[in-house]
């Protein structure tokens, strides 16, 4: 846990971000298929209690910032067959993101 400061989001809309690839035990909200992938911040949702703590009876504090991250379909699903302009939008907590 990075203990992100909820009052000051590290990223802003449009920033390129890479999702950490982590064999993290326990409850996480970051699906495996975006781990290691690069996308762009679509929206800064704000600060929310951390589900990785809430899942074990914790208080979820400090509240990490949650982002809506946009990934190009072709970047996530490699054997897409044909070129796709579709996007995949996933909510990702700040401690799962690093600058790309």
């Amino acid at each position: 846990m990075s203990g992100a400061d909820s009052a000051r989001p590290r990223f802003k809309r449009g920033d390129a971000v890479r999702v950490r690839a982590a064999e993290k035990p326990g409850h996480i909200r970051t699906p495996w298929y975006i781990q290691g992938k690069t996308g762009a911040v679509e929206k800064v949702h704000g600060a929310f209690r951390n589900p990785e703590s809430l899942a074990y009876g914790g208080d979820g504090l400090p509240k990490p910032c949650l982002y809506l991250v946009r990934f190009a379909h072709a970047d996530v699903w490699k054997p897409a067959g044909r070129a796709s302009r579709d996007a995949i939008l996933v909510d990702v907590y700040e401690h799962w993101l690093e600058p790309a």
Partner: protein
Amino acid sequence: MPRVHDRGGWPGAGPIDKAEHEPSMWEKRTDALLVLLTSPEKRVMRVDELRRAIESLEPRAYETMSYYERWITAIEALMIEKGILTHEEIDARVKELNERGR
């Protein structure tokens, strides 16, 4: 390798069954039970704990259970984990209800 619940993009998973069905009474009750247990007034548990308990099911059980079977199994596990109910109390109550239903 993703765990059993983390299924997006599993090869060969096949199409999603989008068929609608009317929830049965026990399924509605299971839903209501979770709403009650997670309500801000009660806060006996959090929905995040439900998710964690569902994800902790044995993969084989996860695959064979229906949606609300996973819920009720997870709720039971959490009530025991939190010391609110015991296995023995649950078993005794189930036995009592079964006998009444005969």
